């Protein structure tokens, strides 16, 4: 069983990881495009971030290049900072209009 699992894992190639990353990205993208709730949209962007992070790690492991892992650290840092900022903004917007619908803020384009 252990062996079987090990062989199964060893049979996992780079493309498996990239497919997973691509699926995650598409889920995040579709979620971002279809939903109107600001928090959900924000979560979707996080999903896309993680998709990119998986692709980086997998590629780094594949080529024994640690740059990919370094990038992931950066992505996590930026995502954390961005999450703090974006959530603060969402809170502010909610306080103004008591709504989380993105379409209610269309006039911000001007």
């Amino acid at each position, binding site marked *: 069983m252990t062996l079987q699992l090990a062989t199964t894992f060893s049979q996992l190639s780079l493309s498996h990881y990239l497919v997973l990353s691509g699926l995650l990205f598409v889920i995040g*993208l579709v979620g*971002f*495009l279809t939903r109107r709730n600001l928090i959900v*949209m924000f979560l979707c962007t996080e999903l896309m971030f993680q998709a990119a992070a998986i692709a980086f790690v997998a590629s780094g492991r594949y080529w024994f290049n640690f740059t990919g892992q370094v990038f992931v650290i950066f992505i996590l840092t930026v995502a954390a900072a961005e999450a703090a900022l974006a959530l603060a903004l969402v809170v502010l917007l909610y306080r103004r209009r008591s709504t989380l619908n*993105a*379409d209610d*803020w269309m006039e911000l384009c001007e």
Partner: protein
Amino acid sequence: MTSAIAIRIVEMLPAVPAVPMADVVEATSHWWAGFILWCPLISLALCGLCAAFRVKSKLPAWITVLSLACSFVLTIILGNLEDVPERIQLFEWISVDWVGGSFVANFALYIDSLTILWMSFVTGLGTLIALYASEYMETDVGKGYARFFSGVSAFLFAMGCLVMGDNLLMLYLGWEGVGFASYWLIGYYYRRPAAVAAAKKAFIVNRIGDLGLALAIYLIWSTFGTVQYNELITHLDAGTFAASYEHWSVEAIPYLLMLAAFGKSAQLPLYVWLPDAMEGPTPVSALIHAATMVTAGIYLIARMYPFFLLEPTSLHVVAWVGGLTALLAATIGMAQYDIKRIFAYSTVSQLGYMFLGLGVLTTYGASYHVFTHAFFKAVLFLAAGAVMHGFAGQLDLRKLSGLRRMKGWRIVAWTMFIGCVCLAGFPFTSGYFSKDAILAEAFVTQGPGFEALGWIAIFTAFLTAYYTFRVWCRVCAGPVHFEPGDELHDDGHHDEEHEFHPHAPRFAINFVLVVIALGALLASVPYFMTNEVSEIKGGWIADMVNDSTAAAGIPGHEEHPGTIAHDAGHAHHGSILGMDPHVAMYWISGVVGGIGLFLAFWLHLWRRQDADRLRSWLLARAWIRWLPVAMENKWYVDEVYHALVRAPLWLLGHIAYGFDRYIVDGLLVDGTARLPRLIARWFQPLQNGLLQSYAVTMAGGAALITLLMVLMMQFFEGGSVQ
């Protein structure tokens, strides 16, 4: 290496004059001569204070008269000193040194007999005319009175710098200064559009000449390394700059100086400003635009005469321009009706005589004519001013008559008569001798067409006699008749509605008229005086010119070494009708002047209706009609200049304005600014505020880029593998 540098430095050093400065005395003990300049300057400052404190009395006039009188007295004292020529340093003005050379222009006076001659009539007439103006301008007391007299003071200071300066830069300072004072005083009645236009015209036309002077000074400095007269003359005399005689700049200098002189002294291409300058108050016309400032051009050429002798062709040009100006201005003067304008054209014409004199190598004749003309033209203008003052600005000679029979006007009428006989060159008056000196010399000196020029000048003398006495016969003689002008004084003591009472001139005007008229008569005395220096006739005036830098042109005077000899002109003594021109001219000009005088008396005094008949006869004949029409319209010179210069410049200005407005501003500046906005307008709809639409655009864009990269990689890999 070091020696090469040393040689270069030696080459770049200004050449040291090999000959010590001729016989110019450095006279520091005569520092008081500076007060000839400082007096008008102090007066300028005091008059300015009077204007600032709104002094409502004749104080500015008395300040000016007193200070100018001081200048005059100092000039006379200076002239009686023995040790001229001398140089009096007042203070260091500009002194710049650098490795390649130096530029030195000190505020110093160069006093030789030419300076004294000029300053004596400038300050003398200046004093008298300021005295005259104290009465003439009295209606402006408290208003423009101080402004007027500060202008006169400024003029005298500038004229002093021009004449007494020891270098060309000081001359330039004075040259621009008199130009500015002239602008200031022509535009004195600044509420009158014609006066403002005339002031601008005078200033702008003079700028053309000033450009010539500026270039000439630069060329002189770059060729000779100095702008001081005594050093320049020394260089020219000694021929230390022999190599540079071949240099083109030495040929160009006299032409540039000539341009400057033609501008200031109102000669042919640039004379148009002087008749218009009569818009100024009459004392200004008399002092600046007849007696003194306009002779600055003659002074410039006389002072720089050695330069002209280096380039004889330039003197031929001077002679011809002078002769033609004399004729043209005389023909215009014949057909005008405004007294002041007639005298203005007469001034242009007489200045033409002076240039003719300079051109035919008689600087003595030119300077003598300057001297006599200063007196008789001043008296003519001042008499015209008295008429204008008394008849409320009336200057039309058809509307004035019989002045000599009116009470209180006899002095004006008879001083004007004296001015007229002198101007007309009536035998044994001052104008007769000074004009003859020029006319005779035109026949003596050899030059291109000088003999024809002489006959032109004689014909002009006939015209001069005619138009001069046309004025006198119309205005001063004949039956008493007058119409007031349109400048009504609001002092209330005459009521225009009922009857106009001309107010006759009082003491100041009459006194000045008599003194200057006497001066005009006595100006013929020097001609009979014995000479101390030169052999030719002409008394102390000839001596004075002979002693100065203008001397080289006097016949019989020893030629300067180093200058191109003019002996050809003097060895062959020309003749006129088989007689010596100097003798024959007494008869010719006397007869010609007499004919003109007779004609004027006939047409304008004895049978005035004949003048009108003659005019209508001329106008009725198609073949001759153009002549009186052209003369009355000043030969359309103003119109021609308008078409040839002003209209193209106006057009050019408007084209440039349009180019700037629509191409530079409109297309380039605003167009560049408008471009981003235009492009932005195409993409603006994309920014609709819908977050999802941005995301779609972004994702689409990213997909597109990814697709493109994949395709490109496949293409390149396929290419590399092949």
